[in-house]
């Protein structure tokens, strides 16, 4: 694999891991808050308090706490992605029509079965919208984060090529970043078509 390929793969893995970790943390918390007002009363004020803080400002703190390696970059991405995912999951569950919940309860669905058959599928359309926003934000922030002590990553590649005046290579790096975005958006679209077949138009 050529040098640009290695940098692209490194950035791709960082974004995918950050998205996966954020989803794994945010979706169960959002589902709990959407279903239980008491949980919402505790979690949502925390989300509202922390969501508006510019997370990029936290990178120095993450580097001090977690070192210069992958953990600080991952922590930065997760703290940015987790809030929109949490809110999408919470609102997706909260907006389930009362009749649908009543119908599910009349069938005897509760707890895990209710979450699996009703709450989770109901929140998916909102979650995929949040995921699309998340991909764009993650790539922008990653570009910034990869400028700090990063061996492989498109952010460091582009800035390094720029600093040594290799503009052609720099442009290929930007094109790779764009291609990475295209691939991730296409993957999200494909995942939505697979996971939400009832939303197919026509």
């Amino acid at each position, binding site marked *: 694999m050529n040098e640009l390929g290695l940098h692209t793969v490194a950035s791709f893995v960082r974004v995918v891991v950050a998205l996966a970790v954020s989803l794994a943390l945010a979706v169960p918390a959002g589902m709990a808050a959407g279903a239980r007002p008491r949980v919402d009363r505790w979690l949502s004020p925390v989300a509202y308090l922390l969501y508006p803080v510019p997370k990029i400002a936290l990178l120095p703190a993450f580097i001090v706490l977690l070192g210069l390696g992958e953990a600080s970059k991952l922590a930065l991405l997760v703290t940015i992605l987790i809030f929109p995912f949490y809110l999408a999951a919470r609102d997706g569950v909260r907006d389930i029509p009362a*009749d649908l919940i009543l119908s*599910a*309860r*009349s*069938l005897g669905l509760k707890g895990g079965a209710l979450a699996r058959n009703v709450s989770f*599928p109901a929140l998916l359309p909102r979650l995929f919208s949040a995921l699309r926003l998340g991909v764009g934000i993650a790539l922008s922030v990653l570009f910034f984060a990869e400028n700090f002590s990063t061996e492989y990553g498109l952010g460091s590649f582009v800035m390094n090529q720029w600093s040594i005046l290799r503009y052609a290579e720099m442009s290929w790096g930007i094109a790779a970043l764009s291609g990475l975005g295209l691939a991730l958006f296409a993957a999200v679209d494909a995942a939505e078509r697979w996971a939400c077949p*009832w939303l197919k138009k026509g």
Partner: protein
Amino acid sequence: MIRVEGVSVRFGDEVVLDGLGLEFATHSTTAMVGRSGCGKTTLLKVMAGLQVPDAGRVTVDGEPVVGVRPGTGLILQSLGLFPWKSVAENVTLALTALGVGPREAADRTRAVLEDLGLTAVAGKFPAQLSGGQAQRTAIARTLVRRSDLLLMDEPSASLDALSREDFQDLLLDLQKRHPSTLVVVTHGIEEAVVLGQTIVVLTKAAPPLRLANPLFGQPRLRSDPRFGPFCQEVREALAGGTK
């Protein structure tokens, strides 16, 4: 026999049901009419075990209803079909929720869909169905559980006039082939006369009024000369109870 014994339900200061008493004979068909807000839907929820009354109780064959009974089917005005599940999956879920194994659930689902003429749309999602097909899917979900008590809350409200008549005929046909105790809440007086062996007029001001329907089960009921006058009788009972 289903007995509603002194059931009261309050939401804050509002008294929705106040010591209501009613009886429904096993395998009977009852149509319940009443003005909006008289507590019809709340009564169905109490009977379905989804609403705990502030006082009183509901019994089915002497057993008090505490929580959801596997043998009770509820069809809401919105039908409550899950948009993300196909017709077959909506029906199968009604069985797997009871702990029925996947193979048996699939077999029973297939049989019920065939019975209701839904085999061709088994893989479709609710948004892709006609109003009548969606109604039949909701019925299939209760039929597949072999429900002995079927509660319906304005199930034909969203249908056009002819589809509504088809739906009423289907219900009566199913009631002959798979008897259950059927309680239908409706705003339609004509629908109540077509479906109800007994018509219960529910009002807030007075105890419920029961009218035996002499026309129930008559062939070509809607064109029977007694149909119009009996509908008028129900209408007057309804108007009288709300004065």
